[in-house]
């Protein structure tokens, strides 16, 4: 049950995406995500969909895993698309009481659901193909300019690293505690929502206790190794851009200009 959560899970491999520099990956993924939300007709949307299909195909990660990460947001997905269905203006195709469905509403629903799916797929392809430590490393580099604004980027990155680092640990811990309570007859799979929430107490209390214990131990261990923040800290692993990164940059630029051209020259169905 808990193991279904794929967020932040790295999937080892040697695909183009795995070999890309994490900084470039983040920038390109962000660009694509922005452009998903400024597609105004089906051609532009189709172009982005095709790109995402290629990315997923290139990642060397089983499609099943992508679908699994979609499972977590399926409720939000259905909810927003159904809601959008009734939101369009124009002539109603069907109505019941105050609810009416218009052509624009249908378009809205299609666009929003595809956008959410793409969003999940793109961000998962980033986390599936990048080690969490590389990811935070890259974020730290990219945010470095913020240092001038007296924002301590290193500390933020360190917090993220620790948080990401402990996701699998805490999941494993949750699994263990759940097993232990199940062994004592805890029933977490049946009952209504109130009963289920109540059934989580025997899991959550020990989990919090152990999270605090771990935090304390980690702080102690870091101090023992003389950790004192980012100043003057050198890195074991240096990041380098390679040829692959620039090919991908080129590809994304072409796609982005394609989307812009589609938006300008073809009739818009979304506003």
């Amino acid at each position: 049950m808990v193991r279904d959560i794929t967020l932040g899970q790295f999937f080892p491999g040697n695909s183009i995406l795995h070999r890309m520099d994490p900084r470039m990956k983040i920038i390109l993924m962000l660009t694509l995500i922005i452009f998903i939300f400024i597609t105004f007709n089906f051609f532009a949307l189709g172009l982005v969909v095709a790109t995402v299909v290629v990315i997923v195909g290139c990642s060397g990660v089983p499609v099943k895993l992508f679908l699994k990460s979609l499972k977590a947001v399926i409720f939000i997905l259905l909810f927003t698309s159904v809601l959008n269905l009734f939101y369009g203006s124009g002539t109603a195709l069907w109505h019941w009481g105050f609810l009416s469905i218009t052509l624009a509403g249908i378009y809205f629903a299609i666009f929003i659901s595809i956008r959410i799916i793409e969003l999940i797929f793109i961000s998962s392809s980033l986390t599936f193909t990048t080690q969490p430590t590389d990811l935070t490393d890259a974020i730290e580099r990219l945010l470095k300019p913020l240092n001038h604004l007296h924002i301590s980027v290193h500390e933020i990155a360190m917090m993220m690293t620790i948080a990401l680092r402990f996701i699998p640990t805490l999941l494993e811990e949750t699994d263990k505690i759940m097993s232990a309570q199940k062994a004592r007859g805890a029933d977490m799979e049946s009952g209504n929502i109130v009963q289920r929430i109540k059934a989580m107490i025997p899991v959550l209390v020990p989990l919090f206790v152990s999270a605090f214990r771990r935090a304390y131990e980690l702080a102690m261990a870091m101090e023992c190794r003389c950790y004192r923040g980012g100043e003057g800290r050198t890195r074991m692993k240096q990041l380098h851009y390679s040829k692959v990164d620039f090919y991908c940059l080129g590809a994304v630029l072409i796609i982005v200009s394609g989307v812009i051209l589609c938006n300008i020259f073809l009739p818009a169905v979304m506003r």
Partner: protein
Amino acid sequence: MNVLETENLRFVYGENTPFEKVAVDNLNISIEKGEFVGIIGHTGSGKSTLVQLFNGLLKPSTGRVLLNDVDIWEKPKEIRKIRFQVGMVFQYPEYQLFEETVYKDISFGPKNMGLSDEEIDKRVRDAAKFVDLKDSLLEKSPFELSGGEKRRAAIAGVLAMDPEVLILDEPTAGLDPMGRDVLLSHIHAYHKTRQNTILLVSHSMEDIARTADRILVMNESKAAMFSNTAEVFSHGKELIEMGLQVPQITRIMMSLREHGYDIKPGILTVEEALQVLLQKIEKEGAAHGS
């Protein structure tokens, strides 16, 4: 009569992913009623997975687990009943304590069984007595107890379900020598009184040698040996090849044997060794004297 039996039992973690790992492979063993079985094996040999298969926390990939000749997954909806019959104490069980008082925590299992309040009270007090928790501790918060007391309270939480088969996964890990001796003697006394089946998973060969009737040796997901304790520990070389140890005293006696002394293999406790050595000295002394 066999209380637990496995038929071609196999379990694979993360099937069809790069993390795929066979944890238990084609296992056929049977455990008799009332036996005290020790399970030993290197880290990652599949012993923890095996015990979780026994009480239905994991579902076999293929093969079956039989409890009193009935497949435990025959009615998947009623798997909780199996978990009450096959009680399982996990590693570091004190991390699962959550209630406001020790009493409430121990009663969590019996309550889930749907027993009456009187029966629950009786079971909680019985279980606490078995692990030697004083009545005054029962009303305390579990987080106020000492490490050893926490461990014993958590074990009591499983004993209170009065399981037919009790599985303990590394119950003495992280305890000081004193706490370890105390706990083992409690487990032993529990076994003697209730006459139920106990499976003890441990890294400590001394613990196993002291308590178990039979030993199951797991190696690379398979059952490498399964026979009585003395027999298993007489195969010292094979065990060492599997990255396991034999009890210290067994090792000493083995090396004496290798040096040409006529000593029987598979000596498990210091007392036994002492007796054997005394006999030997008496005999030889007599031989020298004449």
